[in-house]
C-alpha cells in the first residue's frame, strides 16, 4: 500500500490546478490555435506577421517604450524610494502617497488628464503628447510607484547593523553605494523588471495616444477582426520578451534572498541644507506627475449635473466593479497565501516562474485565451457570467498576492511551525493556528493590492465582461466615444474614489516606517 496523500499536497495541487485552469489552459488553447489553420499545422499566422511591413517597427516601438519607461522609473523612482526610506525629508509620507495615486487608477485616466492639459497649451504640446514622448510620460507616472515603493520596502529591510559598521569607515554616499543598494538590489531589480513587463503589455495608453505597439495590434486583431490565430501570433513576441525579462531577473537574483526581514529602526540620513531643495524638487515632481493631469481631468467633474448623469449612466457599473474586484481579491488573497506558503517550503522556482509569467502576459492575450477556451455550449456558466472575468483577474494577478504573502511569511520564525509539528499538529491546524493569525496584516495588504489591481484593470474587463455586466473601467471606455467631457470627468472621479478608499486604508494599516 502506498503512502497516504498529505492534505498539504492535495491543497498544493488544487492551487496549481486553479492557476492552470485560470491561466495556463487559455494560453495553451490559443497557442495551439495559432499553429492551426484549416485543420492542419501551419505557421501561416507567424509568417504573415513577420513578413508584414509593420511588424518590426511595432516590435521596436514596444521595446523602445518599455525601455524608456523603465529607465525613467528607475532614474526617478529609486532615488525617491531611498529618500523616503532613509532621509529626514519633510512631508515624505505625503509625497510618497501622492506619487502612488496614478498607479491605483486605470492608466488611460492619466493619459486623458494629460490630453486635457495639452488642449489648454496648444497644438505643439498636443503633437508631442500623442506620440512616443507622451506615452513615456504617462506610463512613467503610472508605474513610478512600483520602483519607488519596492525600493522603499527593500531599503527599510536592510540590516541597520551592517550600515552602522560601514559608517565607521565611510560617509553616507559610500554606505549607500557599497552596502544599502547592493543589499536592496533584489527588490529594485524586481521592480524594474515589473515596470518593463507592464509597459510592454500596456494597451490602453498607446492606443489612446495613438502610438502603435504590438499589444495594440494584437487587440485590434482580436476586437476588430476576431482573428484569434493572428492575435496570438502578434502577442507571442511579447510573451517571449516577458519570459526573457523573467530569466534576467532569475539570473540576477540567483542565490540572493528576497525576503523582507524587519530589523528594527532604520538608520537615517540627515539631509541638513539639502532638505529644502529636495523637498521643493519632490513637490514639483508631485505637481507635474500627479496634480497637473488629475486636476485637468477632474476640473469639470464636480458639477452636480455631470455627477448626476455619471451616476445614472454608470452607477450599477461602480457596484459591479467593487463586487467583482472584492470577490477576485478574496480568491487571490487565499490563493496567494497558500502558494506563498508552499514557496516558502522550498518549491519556489516553478511556481514563481509560472505566476510571474502569467502576470507578464498582456491582459489582452490572456482574455483571448479565456474567451476561446470557455465559449462552448457546456461552459456557458463560465462564459456568460462574471466567472470568466474573475478567472482572468486570478490568473493575471496571483503573482502579486503570492509574492506579498511570501514576503510576509518570511517574517514568521520557522521555529513556530516546527514547534507545532513536533507537538503533533497537522498541517491544516498549523496553518490556521499559527500562519494565518500571524499574517493578518499580510493578508489584508494582499487583499487590498489585488482589489486595486482588479478594479483598475482594463483589458480583461473589456474583453471578458458578460453582457450587461461591464465593470466601470470598460464602461468609461465605451462612453468616451462622443460622451460629454464633464460626464466622463465625473465617471473618472467616481472611479478614482473607489480606488483611493482602499489606498487610504492601506496607508493607515501600513505606517510609512515599519
Amino acid at each position, binding site marked *: 500500500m502506498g503512502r497516504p496523500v498529505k492534505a498539504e499536497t492535495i491543497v498544493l495541487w488544487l492551487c496549481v490546478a486553479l492557476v492552470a485552469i485560470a491561466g495556463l489552459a487559455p494560453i495553451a488553447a490559443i497557442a495551439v490555435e495559432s499553429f492551426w489553420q484549416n485543420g492542419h499545422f501551419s505557421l501561416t499566422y507567424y509568417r504573415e506577421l513577420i513578413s508584414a*511591413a*509593420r511588424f518590426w517597427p511595432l516590435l521596436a516601438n514596444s521595446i523602445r517604450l518599455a525601455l524608456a519607461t523603465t529607465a525613467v522609473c528607475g532614474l526617478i523612482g529609486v532615488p525617491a524610494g531611498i529618500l523616503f526610506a532613509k532621509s529626514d525629508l519633510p512631508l515624505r509620507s505625503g509625497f510618497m502617497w501622492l506619487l502612488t495615486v496614478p498607479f491605483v487608477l486605470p492608466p488611460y485616466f492619466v493619459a486623458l488628464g494629460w490630453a486635457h492639459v495639452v488642449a489648454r497649451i496648444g*497644438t505643439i504640446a498636443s503633437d508631442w503628447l500623442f506620440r512616443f514622448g507622451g506615452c513615456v510620460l504617462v506610463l512613467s507616472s503610472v508605474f513610478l510607484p512600483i520602483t519607488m515603493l519596492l525600493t522603499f520596502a527593500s531599503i527599510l529591510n536592510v540590516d541597520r547593523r551592517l550600515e552602522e559598521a560601514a559608517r565607521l569607515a565611510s560617509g553616507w554616499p559610500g554606505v549607500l553605494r557599497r552596502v544599502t543598494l547592493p543589499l536592496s538590489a533584489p527588490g529594485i531589480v524586481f521592480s524594474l523588471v515589473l515596470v518593463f513587463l507592464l509597459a510592454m503589455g500596456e494597451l490602453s495608453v498607446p*492606443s489612446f495616444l*495613438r502610438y502603435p505597439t504590438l499589444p*495594440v495590434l494584437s*487587440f*485590434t486583431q482580436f*476586437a*476588430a*477582426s*476576431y482573428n*484569434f490565430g493572428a492575435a496570438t501570433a502578434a502577442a507571442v513576441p511579447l510573451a517571449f520578451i516577458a519570459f526573457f525579462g523573467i530569466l534576467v531577473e532569475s539570473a540576477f537574483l540567483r542565490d540572493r534572498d528576497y525576503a523582507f526581514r524587519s530589523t528594527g529602526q532604520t538608520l537615517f540620513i540627515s539631509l541638513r541644507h539639502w532638505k529644502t531643495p529636495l523637498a521643493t524638487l519632490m513637490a514639483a515632481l508631485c505637481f507635474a506627475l500627479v496634480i497637473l493631469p488629475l486636476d485637468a481631468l477632474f476640473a469639470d467633474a464636480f458639477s452636480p449635473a455631470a455627477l448626476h448623469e455619471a451616476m445614472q*449612466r454608470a452607477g450599477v457599473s461602480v457596484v*459591479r466593479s467593487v*463586487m*467583482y474586484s*472584492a*470577490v477576485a481579491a*478574496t480568491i487571490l488573497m487565499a490563493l496567494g497565501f497558500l502558494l506563498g506558503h508552499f514557496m516558502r517550503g522550498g518549491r519556489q522556482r516553478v511556481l514563481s516562474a509560472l505566476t510571474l509569467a502569467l502576470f507578464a502576459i498582456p491582459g489582452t492575450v490572456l482574455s483571448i485565451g479565456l*474567451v476561446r477556451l470557455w*465559449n*462552448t*455550449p457546456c461552459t*456557458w456558466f463560465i*462564459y*456568460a*457570467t*462574471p*466567472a470568466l472575468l*474573475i478567472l482572468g483577474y486570478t490568473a493575471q494577478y496571483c503573482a502579486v498576492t503570492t509574492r506579498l504573502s511570501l514576503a510576509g511569511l518570511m517574517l514568521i520564525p520557522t521555529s513556530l511551525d516546527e514547534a507545532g509539528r513536533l507537538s503533533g499538529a497537522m498541517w491544516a491546524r498549523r496553518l490556521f493556528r499559527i500562519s494565518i493569525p500571524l499574517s493578518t496584516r499580510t493578508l489584508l495588504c494582499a487583499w487590498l493590492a489585488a482589489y486595486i489591481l482588479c478594479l483598475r484593470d482594463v483589458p480583461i474587463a*473589456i474583453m471578458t*465582461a*458578460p*453582457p*450587461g*455586466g*461591464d465593470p466601470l473601467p*470598460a*464602461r468609461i*471606455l*465605451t*462612453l*468616451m*466615444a*462622443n*460622451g*460629454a467631457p464633464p460626464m466622463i470627468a465625473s465617471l473618472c472621479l467616481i472611479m478614482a474614489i473607489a480606488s483611493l478608499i482602499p489606498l487610504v486604508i492601506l496607508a493607515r494599516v501600513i505606517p510609512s516606517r515599519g
Partner: protein
Amino acid sequence: MNMPNPIHVVLILLLAVGLNSCRSASSKALVVYVSEDQIFSEPILKDFERETAITVKSVFDTEESKSTGVMNRLIAEKDNPQADIYWANEPVRADALKQRGVSTAYVSPSAEGIPDQFKDPDHYWTGFSARARLLLVNARSTIKPASVMAYTDPLAKGRAAIANPLFGTTTDYVAALFAIWGDDRARTFMNDMKRNGVKTTTSNGESADFVAAGQVDFSLVDSDDAVNRKKQGKPVEIVYPDQDANGLGVLILPNAVALIKGGPHPENGKQLIDYLLSRSTERKLAFADCAQIPLHSGVDTPPEVRRIEDIKPMRVGYADLARKMEEIQPFLKEWAGQ
C-alpha cells in the same frame, strides 16, 4: 464591535455575483450587442426596458475596435449564440452577418414606411436612423467644396483631411466610390487625393476637430461629428456634397438591426426590433446629440438635421458595398501604408 466572519462575507459576495449572473437566463431578458455609440444607444435601450419590463443586457463596442468588435464576437459565437439582437451602426456589418449565417430573417411591422433601399431584400436586417457622409468645412476657409472631387483640386493641396480608410465609415465611402465609378476611376481618385497631400487621421472625430481648429480647410466626416461641432459653436459649415443633377449623391449609412439565429430570447428580440424601427425611436435619435436622419418620412427633426426626402442619396446596394470592402482591402492597406 465584532468583526464580520470573513467566510460569511465571501459567501455573500459570491451569492451576489451568482444572482447577478443568473438574471440573464430569465424569460424577461434579452441580450443585445451594440456597435452604435453607447452614449446614444443606451438611453433608447433604457426606454425599451421601462416600457416593456424586459431586462436588456448589452455589450457595447469600444472606439478602439472601430465598431467591428461585437460583430466579430457574434461570428465567433455562431455555434453558441449568446445574443438575441445586433444593433449595427451601419448595414454593411449586418449584411456580413447574413452572409455568414449568423442572423435570421424577421419582417417587422415597424419597418413599413422605411424605403426599400435601406432594408435587406430577404429581411435579414432593417435600416433606421441614418448618418450621412458630409463635408465639414472651416467657416474661415477660402475653399468652398461642393463635391468630394475637391480633394484632388490643386487649391486644396495639403489643406484637407480624411479618416484612415481602413476603418469605419470611411471604408464604406471608398467602397461606394469603387462600386459606382469602377475600380480604375476610384483608384485614380484615391491616388490623386494622396498626391494632393491629404492628411490621414485616426477617426472622423479627429478630422472634425482638425477642421474646427483650422488645421485643415475641410474633411469628409459623419453627420453626427459635423452636427456635434456645430452645436459646440465651432466655426464650421456643413456641406451635403454632390447634390447636383449628375452628382454622386450623399452616402447614407443607416443603423441596422438584425435578429440572431438561435439566440436565447427570440420573442423579446423581435419586440426590441419593432421598438428600434418605430417612428418614435427615430425621432429620439434625430433630437439626440447624434442628430441622425429618420428614414420614415414625416418624422420631426431639429433644424440642423435634413430630412431624408430632402437629400439626394448615393445609389448603392449595401451588399455590394460589403463585397467591395473586402475586395479593396489590399489596395487600402497599401494606400494607408500598412
